[in-house]
């Protein structure tokens, strides 16, 4: 089984993001960047499937500037076999390369690479849209599992995959035919830490650079603002005061 793992370079989740002074972007200068955390879960699952003999090759792909090679190298260190950078200087977001363009780009890659499985994060933690996996599945005409918290490869039957999905009200189990698109949620696994020897090995793994095809951005970004701040709160000394405040001041109980 060949697995394609699309990833995204995003601002590290521990960074407190700031809107720039022109109100049209988030400050990214001198900000720590990482692999989108949900994509790390997708990668981990792919590597795990290879380790247990279910996957033969893992190809990772991203869209971005030359700098996104850092995240591809990390993915290679985690266990991907080779990487593809689709080069673009546009932001991978509204106002730049938007979800549908991202899905179309991965669609083209899927057509040339012919993976049996595409594993990717359920959303990126910058735009938070959570659209690309479903769009990609639709363009390919493949089944999908979003918010996946468990994935099992089946040996028998018409369907090759059994998945558990975290949905409103509980957990849902589905069986899917392959090829399929799986979007990873946090409880799918625990991504491994990359070790130094793996980083060294990853430097020798193949990384191909191709150009992004024309995009069709048709959503305009008008502005980015910070949400209104909450009014400052107060400290209460004890339970009695808390109950009194909730009853008589906030009128919440």
């Amino acid at each position, binding site marked *: 089984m060949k697995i394609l793992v699309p990833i995204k370079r995003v601002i590290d*989740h521990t960074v*407190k*993001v700031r*809107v720039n002074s022109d109100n049209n972007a*988030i400050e990214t200068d001198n900000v720590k960047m990482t692999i989108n955390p949900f994509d790390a879960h997708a990668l981990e699952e792919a590597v795990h499937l290879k380790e247990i003999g279910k996957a033969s090759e893992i190809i990772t792909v991203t869209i971005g500037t030359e700098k996104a090679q850092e995240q591809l190298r990390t993915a290679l260190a985690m266990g991907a076999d080779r990487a593809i950078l689709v080069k673009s200087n546009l932001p991978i977001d*509204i106002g730049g390369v938007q979800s*549908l363009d991202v899905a179309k780009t991965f669609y083209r890659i899927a057509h040339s690479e012919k993976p049996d499985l595409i594993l990717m994060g*359920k959303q990126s*933690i*910058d*735009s*938070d*849209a*959570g*659209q690309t996996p*479903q*769009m990609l*599945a*639709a363009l390919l005409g*493949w*089944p*999908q599992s*979003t*918010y996946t918290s468990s994935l099992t490869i089946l040996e028998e039957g018409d369907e090759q995959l059994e998945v558990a*999905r*975290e*949905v*409103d009200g*509980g*957990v*849902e*189990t*589905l*069986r*899917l035919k392959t090829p399929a698109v799986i979007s990873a949620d*946090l409880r799918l696994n625990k991504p491994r830490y990359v070790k130094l020897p793996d980083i060294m090995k990853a430097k020798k793994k193949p990384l191909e650079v191709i150009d992004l095809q024309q995009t*069709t*951005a048709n*959503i*305009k*970004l*008008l*502005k*980015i*603002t*910070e*949400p209104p701040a909450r009014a400052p*709160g*107060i*400290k*209460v*000394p004890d*339970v*009695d005061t*808390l*109950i009194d*405040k*909730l009853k008589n001041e*906030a009128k919440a*109980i």
Partner: protein
Amino acid sequence: MTILILAQHDNKSIHPATFSTVTAATQLGENNIHLLIAGHNCENVAKTACQIAGVDKVLYASAPHYENFLAEEITPLIINLTKDETYTHILAPATSFGKNILPRIAALLDVQQISNVTEIIDANTFVHPIYTGNALATVQSDNPIKVLTLRATAFEEAEICVGKASPIEQIDPLPAVNLSRFIQREVIETERPNITTAKIVVAGGHALGSIENFKMLETLADKLGGAIGATRAAVDAGYVPNDAQIGQTGKIIAPDLYIGIGLSGAVQHTSGIRDTKTIVAINTDEKAPICEIADYTLNADLFDVLPELIEKL
């Protein structure tokens, strides 16, 4: 303009987020609003849908392969509807239901989607949170069809008008696609109110330390008639089912009162409670991020406070 809303329901009743989505649709301007009920043997749901204020027509499609709302099955049904009627907008709630299906539709219509809309400026201009709610993006779409998911907490629920009866149009089901098959759903049964619509939510974190201790939280929630919420860490530790998780991976809530107990308040969690009216933090750590956004902070040990709160409320 004609708007199509994909309704979330469970073949028995309509999900509250659907009512909020109808309200959002009415804010798009002078419109004709169609509400699609796709499911199996859920005529009663369609009949209720006819009574929702603002809904002009209910489209009802029933087939065994629509029973579990598989994205692969629902998508072609909606794409087919767009061939007969010129829709300007297609809407669904930004729940795991709507978010699962709508991007497939957007892709096949060759349009971008705008997710988690929290404010409608006009029929083409929308606000939605990005970066876990740390920023708000205002965007404008010139797509012929706008595909949007709407955050339920940002819109009031549309009312039921008893006696109103918008027409129901039967939609012929399409043949099953059979790319995916539903096996089972583990639904968490609870007597407590739904976390996304509850007026009061009591949330706990990893510091609770055990399932038994988490039960104290449930006692408090029951005293207040509230729902139970949790952080990712508490869910991962098995104290509470995933359904209770609040935040980026989990539910977005906006109750009147939120009480956070034994949790630090990482942004991944607090992004889900930003629109709460009153936030209470009970935490020994004065520097915990939850205390920065709380209206009332009680810096004390939860194991002292919880029994006292339960007793005195």
